[in-house]
């Protein structure tokens, strides 16, 4: 059925034909399969744990542009911003033995990792920045993931096009050494456009996975029933959940 749809459409070979195929369920299954193949290939082809390339200070982009949400126009966020995020809290919950609520001071007091990495937007551009923050893995370990946990969901303070921004990743990426909760860019506290006070860095994937304005981290067994159910704001709008491609 799926293959037939594709063949019939390809016979037309018009862009219009492709748009009709693109709306079928079979096509969705095919592209999800292709995405899964890409993810499996990226994991299988790497010798051990693959690391995103880390750059030198000389490679830094002179300016780090913001994308998606760059301003949060809510009273609540503006008040936090004015107070230097002294009362900002990030919760760690869901399928964990010990739910946490971390302040920015506590996050800055944890062992820090600083990394100069390339940020690749799904649109095509790249920028290089130096990020500092604690690794996500040890925080999850401290909270004590329950065995049913398969994904980590990231909750954000921003609302984009009327939808709450959120993201998710698998445990492979959550425990990756370069996955950090960054509170500083190029040695200074994050600016609002870059996700102040705290954003995720998930360096082997595209920019939309790097959730900004973090408010909560949640361990879950399934992504179903969370917002649109596809595992992220852009994923709910048709983009790939595995964004390493």
């Amino acid at each position, binding site marked *: 059925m799926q293959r037939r749809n594709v063949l019939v459409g390809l016979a037309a070979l018009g862009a219009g034909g492709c748009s009709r195929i693109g709306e079928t369920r079979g096509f969705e299954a095919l592209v999800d399969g*292709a995405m899964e193949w890409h993810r499996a290939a990226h994991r299988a082809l790497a010798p051990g744990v693959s690391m*995103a390339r880390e750059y030198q200070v000389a490679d830094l982009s002179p300016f780090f542009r913001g994308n998606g949400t760059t301003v949060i126009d809510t009273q609540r966020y503006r008040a936090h911003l004015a107070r230097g995020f002294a009362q900002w809290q990030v919760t760690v919950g869901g399928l964990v033995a010990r739910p946490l609520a971390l302040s920015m001071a506590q996050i800055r007091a944890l062992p820090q990792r600083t990394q100069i990495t390339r940020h690749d937007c799904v*649109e095509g551009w790249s920028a290089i920045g130096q990020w500092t923050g604690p690794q996500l893995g040890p925080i999850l370990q401290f909270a004590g993931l329950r065995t049913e946990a398969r994904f980590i969901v990231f909750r954000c303070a921003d609302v984009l096009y009327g939808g709450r921004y959120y993201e998710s990743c698998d445990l492979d990426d959550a425990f990756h050494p370069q996955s950090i909760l960054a509170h500083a860019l190029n040695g200074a506290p994050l600016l609002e456009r870059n996700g102040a006070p705290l954003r995720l860095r998930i360096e082997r994937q595209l920019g939309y996975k790097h959730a900004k304005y973090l408010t909560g981290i949640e361990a879950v067994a399934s992504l179903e029933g969370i917002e649109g159910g596809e595992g992220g704001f852009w994923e709910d709008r*048709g*983009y790939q959940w595995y964004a390493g491609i």
Partner: protein
Amino acid sequence: MKRHALSTRIWHWINAVSIIVLFMSGLNISNAHPYLYWGDWGFSPTEAWLAVPRFPDWAVIPGRYSLAIARDWHLLFSWVFALGLLGFMISALVNGHFARDLFTRAPEWRWRLFSAEVRRYLRFDFAHTGGKYGSIQKLTYALVVFVLLPLMILTGMAISPGMGAAWPWLLEVTGGRQSARSIHFLASFALLGFTIVHVLLVLLTGPWGQLKGMTTGQVDERGDAAA
């Protein structure tokens, strides 16, 4: 007379579909950020070496601007394209197609022979004696099969952050992610140029016989082809 092996024919058509889908979905992806850069990074027009024109809806898959759907097509057909090329290369090595028909030999590398071939083509004389293809034809096909098509795969992988982490050498050999993206774009237009000339030559040399040769594998005794 047998003209093309079954594996060649199957790959030819799979590849034709793949590169059309990849090219047209690629144009849509280009529309998302139509600026090209050299090196590792670049994000604004001031750093761009090329501002790419916006490609119209009729030229893109799915017929309107949609980065998400264009990426679905692109990432699906990247598998068809890459595995198809791999299969073709293995079978063409095994069945001798490369050695017999595509590799040029030292005696063919003569300026006089090349210029004579060009002069014949300019007279629209596409008959050639001995061998399946003329020397220029062989060089063109070899350039496409061994350079341009693999370059699309190599640069495509270098653009992917997951592959760039798995195989860091991809970023070294391509000169950085944005260079890889620029080369990916340039090579795709080189392939478009090849495809246009290829189709024109098919039209000039008896399109019916050519299509028959590439589909059934059979061709009339006197049939020959520059495409």
